[in-house]
């Protein structure tokens, strides 16, 4: 029983981190029809800048805010420099965002050095609770709570505010939104920056969770996020949450019971979904 609960919490925590990364990706795709292969780079920048801010200020809150700020600024630069020139051309988008991914992860090595860095868990969140035989690691619970809060906030913005309405309408039909006199390009920029900020948040939360950070982690996690976006349905926000939890749980249970398959299980999940239900489990409409 306690094993089951531990695996469940592990899976949920990993799932939440992937969700934060995939949420931005799925919104950007749904709205702008851009698959951002540089998303993992923003994630890694979030992790490194977060660890740097934590080292300087010694405050985890400031580290999180600093990382999000870095992500948002990078998102602004990416949208303006990289995405805008190639709107509408899928092949060029794939190529150029992948190129930017290389630049981002190499820049990381230039700025922070090529070696992996150790990331400490803040003292308030380190350690664990013991309830009977069940050991709950505080930090994992913290990630899960943050994940649900972010989901709630974004769900509120999407469903209850004007900008959320525009974004949802844009996902369904962007030409129509534009025809109604809304500057959709501006909305694209905001959504991209928000997505980049979420990626950076995911990165900074990931750092103490895994203990070490390295430039290549961006790509590794981005692949998981792509899988989640495909399984959840491109452009579907709740879909990406459920798919992320599914991928997280599948990873944690497989790693325990069938370790040889743990890395392959997600890819198989995606392949099965793509072959039988290419639009994903959830669709963005409605």
């Amino acid at each position, binding site marked *: 029983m306690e094993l089951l609960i531990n695996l469940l919490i592990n899976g949920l925590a990993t799932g939440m981190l992937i969700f934060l990364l995939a949420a931005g990706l799925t919104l950007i795709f749904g709205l702008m029809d851009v*698959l951002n292969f540089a998303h993992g780079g923003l994630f890694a920048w979030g992790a490194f800048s977060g660890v740097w801010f934590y080292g300087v200020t010694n405050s985890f809150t400031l580290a999180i805010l600093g990382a999000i700020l870095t992500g948002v600024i990078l998102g602004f630069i990416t949208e303006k420099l990289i995405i805008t020139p190639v709107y509408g051309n899928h092949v060029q988008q*794939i*190529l150029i965002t992948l190129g930017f991914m290389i*630049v981002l992860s190499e820049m990381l090595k*230039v700025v922070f050095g090529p070696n992996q860095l150790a990331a400490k868990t803040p003292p308030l969140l380190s350690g664990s609770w013991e309830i009977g035989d069940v050991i709950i690691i505080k930090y994992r619970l913290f990630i899960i709570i943050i994940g649900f809060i972010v989901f709630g906030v974004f769900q509120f913005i999407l469903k209850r505010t004007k900008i959320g309405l525009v974004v949802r309408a844009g996902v369904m039909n962007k030409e129509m939104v534009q025809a109604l006199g809304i500057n959709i390009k501006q909305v694209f920029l905001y959504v991209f920056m928000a997505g980049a900020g979420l990626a950076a948040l995911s990165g900074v939360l990931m750092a103490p969770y895994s203990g070490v950070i390295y430039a290549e982690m961006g*790509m590794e996690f981005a692949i998981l996020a792509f899988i989640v976006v495909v399984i959840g349905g491109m452009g579907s926000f709740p879909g990406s949450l459920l798919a992320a939890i599914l991928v997280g749980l599948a990873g944690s249970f497989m790693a325990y019971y069938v370790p040889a398959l743990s*890395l*392959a299980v997600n890819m198989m999940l995606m392949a099965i979904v793509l072959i039988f239900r290419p639009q994903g489990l959830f669709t963005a409409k409605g």
Partner: protein
Amino acid sequence: MKSTFQVSKIILFAIVVALAIFPFVSDSRTWTILLTQIFIFSILAMSYDILLGYTGIVSFGHAMFFGMGAYATAIMLDRFEPTIGIFVLSIAVGMCIAGIISFLVGLLTLRLKSHFFAMLTMAVSGLFLVLAEKWRTLTFGNDGFTFKAPEIFKDRMMYYLLVLGCLVLVYLLLRRFVDSPLGRVLIAVRENEQRTKSLGFQTLHYKVIASVVAGVIASLAGSLYAVSLRFVNTSVLTMDITLDALLMTIIGGVGTLIGPIIGAGVIELAQHYLSGLAKEHPIFERWIIFFGIVYILAVIFFPKGIVGTVKHLFWKRKNPIKIAISSKRKGIAK
């Protein structure tokens, strides 16, 4: 047009002859090895160009075919005797495996839109990487293993000539392939898949053929690569190989065949010199950053790459009217 075509053929022939004589004139070991590397990556980049440049599909899993060839040759030379016969057989085996896998993967994935295809190829290639890391009895995982190359290739010069021969052969075959009616259909798919479909072509079949051809040629490049190093590990299956092929194709010029060769030369040479400059300033250790930037600029401003841009300039000087029409057409297509 006809006369320039002849001239370019003669120039190409002269370059090949010059490259073939090169090892007899110079005995620089570094250059022989460097050129061998360039030729091998030219083959890989050309095969990638069949997908990206001629059919207009972006695959992020090209490394898996390269890796299949590399492992097929390495394992067979290691388990059996290192003779020429086994070497040729292992290339054939690698090509067959790559052909079958690319056929199956292509059949399953090429129906999907470009984004999904790119991601799924990335995932499948990731699966093969994991498989190679885990199947240690066969591949020795990330540590890799060394093996003996056939006796005759102990001489670097012989191997250089063999690889050059392969490069010329692959170039001629692929040139024939893309100029054939089948190749024309591939170009049509790149330009406008919907319209090609409405003309009655089953585009999926053509795309699968393109992916099988590209996979088989990539496997050949992998086999040659493994023997040139006499060592193989899982790095041949990583994303880096795909990225190399991608950079070479884009920078050299997509859809030209000569472009990827020039791209391979530019990148390998620049890599050689820039990593040599690392002693001067540490930024040169991160030489790939320059390529990233050049690549992004190329995608935005020179989507045709070096060869495409040069060709474009020459063509413009000779046929100002034709270019006006073609650029107008492009405007409509957008």
